[in-house]
C-alpha cells in the first residue's frame, strides 16, 4: 500500500469472525476460498490453523478479519465460550442440498444470540450452490479461475457436476425459504459456492460494511491508546499484556 504501514494501520481494525454450521457444509472451504482463493475438492475435516487472517478493503478503511474455525469442536457440542468471546461477526453456513443443515444453522444462530456479543453481525450462507446450478450458467461474476483442484474427485460430495436438468432437483433448501428466515432473524443472507467462488467475496464484504468500525476503533483507542498497529492481538485490544512481546527474555529461563 502506498501510504505505508503507519497510515494504513491507523485506519485498520481487527475483527474476529467465527464460523459455525453442521459438519461438512463447507465452512472451511468458504474461508479458504476467501483467504487464499483456493478450493480443495476432497478436503479433510478441519485440521490446521489456529485462525486465518484476511484483510478486506472498504473505501478508505481496511478491515482485518481474524477467522476462527470450529476445529471440529462443534461436533459434540463442545465449543468453548472462548470461541464466541469478542467475536464481532459470525458466518453460519448450511448446505443448500441438505435441508437438515438449515435447521442446524438455526440452532447455531440461537446459540450465538445467547452466547455472543449482542452487537455481533451474523450472516447466513447457503453453500454448495454450484451443485444446484445448471453447469452452463456458472457465474461470470466468479472472481476465480477454477483450474486446479477439479479432478480426482470420485469421493467428493455426491452430485458433482450434474447434468443441467437434474441440478435444481438436488436443492433441498429453497432460496426464498432461507432468505425469509434470515430476514426475520436479522441476518445477512448469501448463497455461496466455495468451489466456484460465487458469493464468497460479497459475503465478507457485506459483513464488513455492517461492522461498526468507528465504534471498535474508538473503544480500542480508549483502552490501550495504540491498538490497530501491526502485531496487535485480541489481547492487545483489551488493554492486556501481550505475552509474546518479551518472548526473547523468557527463553533464557526456559530449559528447553
Amino acid at each position, binding site marked *: 500500500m502506498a501510504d505505508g504501514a503507519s497510515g494504513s494501520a491507523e485506519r485498520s481494525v481487527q475483527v474476529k469472525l467465527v464460523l459455525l454450521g453442521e459438519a461438512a457444509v463447507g465452512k472451511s472451504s468458504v474461508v479458504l476460498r476467501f483467504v487464499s482463493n483456493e478450493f480443495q475438492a476432497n478436503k479433510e475435516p478441519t*485440521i490446521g490453523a489456529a485462525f*486465518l*487472517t484476511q484483510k478486506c478493503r472498504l473505501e478508505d478503511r481496511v478491515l482485518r478479519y481474524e477467522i476462527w474455525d470450529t476445529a471440529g469442536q462443534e461436533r459434540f457440542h*463442545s465449543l468453548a465460550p*472462548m470461541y464466541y468471546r469478542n467475536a464481532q461477526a459470525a458466518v453460519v453456513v448450511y448446505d443448500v442440498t441438505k435441508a437438515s443443515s438449515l435447521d442446524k444453522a438455526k440452532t447455531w444462530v440461537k446459540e450465538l444470540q445467547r452466547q455472543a456479543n449482542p452487537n455481533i453481525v451474523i450472516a447466513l450462507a447457503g453453500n454448495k450452490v454450484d451443485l444446484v446450478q445448471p453447469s452452463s450458467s456458472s457465474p461470470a461474476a466468479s472472481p476465480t479461475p477454477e483450474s486446479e483442484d477439479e479432478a480426482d474427485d470420485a469421493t467428493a460430495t455426491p452430485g458433482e457436476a450434474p447434468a443441467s436438468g437434474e441440478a435444481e432437483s438436488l436443492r433441498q433448501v429453497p432460496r426464498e425459504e432461507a432468505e425469509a428466515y434470515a430476514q426475520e432473524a436479522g441476518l445477512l443472507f448469501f448463497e455461496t459456492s466455495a468451489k466456484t467462488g460465487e458469493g464468497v467475496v460479497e459475503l465478507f464484504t457485506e459483513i464488513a460494511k455492517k461492522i461498526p468500525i468507528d465504534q471498535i476503533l474508538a473503544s480500542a483507542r480508549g483502552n490501550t491508546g495504540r491498538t490497530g498497529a501491526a502485531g496487535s492481538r*485480541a489481547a492487545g485490544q483489551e488493554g*492486556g499484556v501481550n505475552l509474546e512481546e518479551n518472548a526473547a*527474555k*523468557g527463553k533464557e529461563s526456559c530449559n528447553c
Partner: protein
Amino acid sequence: MDVDAVVLGSGLTESITAAALSKAGYKVAHLDVNPYYGGDNASLTVDELVTWADERAGDAPSTSYVSAQRSKYTSISKSGSSPPQSRQYSISLSPTIIPSIGPLIDALIASGVSRYGGFKLLEKVAIYTGPGSVKPVPGSKEDVFKNKELSLLEKRRLMRFLMFAAGDFEGKKELESKEDSPFIEFLRDVFSLDGQTAAAIAYALAFCTSATEPTLPSLQRIRKYLRSTGRYGPSPFLVGHYGGLGEIAQGFCRTAAVSGAAYILAHNISSIHTVGDGEADRKYKIGLEGLEETITCDLLVSSSGYPSPEEPSTGADTSGSSTSSTSYHVARAVAIIDRPLTFSSPPEGATDLFVSEEAEEELAEGEQPPTRQELDTALLVFPPSSLPGGSSQAAANALVTSEGSMSAPKGKWILYLSLPLLDATTASAEALLRPYLDATLTLAVPDATSPAPPKPLFAVFYIEHPDAPAAAPSPSVLRAPPSSTLISEQADSATANAEALFWKAAEALGAAGIRPKRTPEAEGEEVEVDVDSFWPPLDMIDDPSEDW
C-alpha cells in the same frame, strides 16, 4: 472412534497434556463429564457456580464423578442471592496469579495458545498488618528504594537480602546447613530481618503458608518472582482474563482440536473396559452415556475423580492421604461485591504510600489529586495471627479481580479468599473465612451515603481437599498428579505436571509401538515423526502476524 490416547478431564494439566500430545501427532480424544471446560480449574458464570455448588452440596444419588467431587469439595454454603448478568462473570474455581517467567508462560508461547487469551498485570500486593491497616509489599529493589516507610537500616538489610535472593544462592555460605530450617528464622538469623519486614518477605514475596516452611524452596520462589518482575511490567504476576486457568485450559483444548483432537463434553462415562490380552495389545474401550459410538484407545490419561478401567488383579491404591508438601486442604470463598477495594490510607492520612507513579505524575501536572486508588486486580496477604479470629498457623490471602481482567461486569468485583488448613478442623468453611471476608471488606472505598463496609451481594464458601496421588493400575493408565495449592505456583505446577505426563504418555505409547504422525506442510501424506520436544515448532501457517 479409535485413538492413541484418551484424556479424561479438562483441568489445566490434562488440557496442556492433550494439546501437547495432539500437536506431537498423536490421535487424541479429550472428554469431560462437565458441560464446561476446565474441570476443577474451570471459570464459571454465576449460574454455573450455583449449579456447581448445589450439585456438590447435595446428596441425591449420582454418578461416581459427582461422588468423588463431593469428597473433594465439602462444607459448601451460599449466602446472598445470585446477581443478574450471570454470564458476565467468569468465576475461577482456582484463583491464581501467574509468574511472568515460568513453565506456564513458556508453554503458552511455545504452543501458540498465548494468542487466544489475554492477561492483566496484578496491580498490587499488600500485607494485612492490623484492623483497617495494610502495607504495600515491595516487589523489586526499586520499590524498596522508593519506600518511605522503611528506615535506612532496614532498607540496607532488605536490599542485601534481595540481592542474595535474586542470585545463585545455592551453595552460598549464608545458606549452609540452613536449607531446611524455617525461612522466618533464616531471615532473622542471617539477614537480621524480623517483624513486619520478615513477615512481608515470607508471606507476600515467597507466599509461604506457615512459619515453619523451609528456607530453600522459599528462596527459590522469591528468585523466580524477582526475575519475573519487569518482563511484562512492574509486577511479576499476571492474572488471566475471563477467570484465568479455566480460560487458559480452553485455549489449550482449542489448540489440541486444531491439531485434530476430538472433544466431547457433558457425557458421563458409562464404562471403561480393558480389551485385548497382555501388556502388548491392551486397549481400553470407553462407553459414554447418550452416545452410541465407543472410543478405543491405547493409553488413558485421567484426572482424579474419573473411573479407572476395572483391573481384577491389581488392587487399586487407596492408601493416598499423603500429598505433596504444597498441596493443602484449603478453605475457599468467592464473594461478589459492588464496591472497589483500596489499599490506600484515607486521604487525610499522613503518608500515602500507595499512590502509583502515574497518579504522582497527574498530581505534578496539577490535575485532580487522587483520593484513593480503586483496585481492579490485587492481592492481599494475611500472615498467621494477623487477624483476631483468623488462623494463628497459616497465611491466608484475598485476590480481587474485576472488569480489567474481563471477569466481572463494570462496577462489580470478585473476591477470592483462600486459607490453607494445616490441621484437621471441624469448623465450616464459612466460619473459618468470615473474619477474613469482613476484614477485607473494611478496605472497600467508602460509599458517600453509607460509611459501613459493603456486604457481599453473593458468596459461596467451601473446603477443597487435595487430590490424593493414586497409583495407576497399569503403565497405560496415567493419572494427572495434584498441583500445588499455592496461589502463585498452581499454574506452573500444573504445567510442569503436564510436561511430565506428556513424556510418560509418549513413552507408554512408544512401548506399545505407537508413533505420532504429522502431515508436513509440503505434501499431504502423513509421516511418522519422533517426539523430541514438549512443543513442536510453531508452523508458519499458525502465525497470523504476516506483514502487510
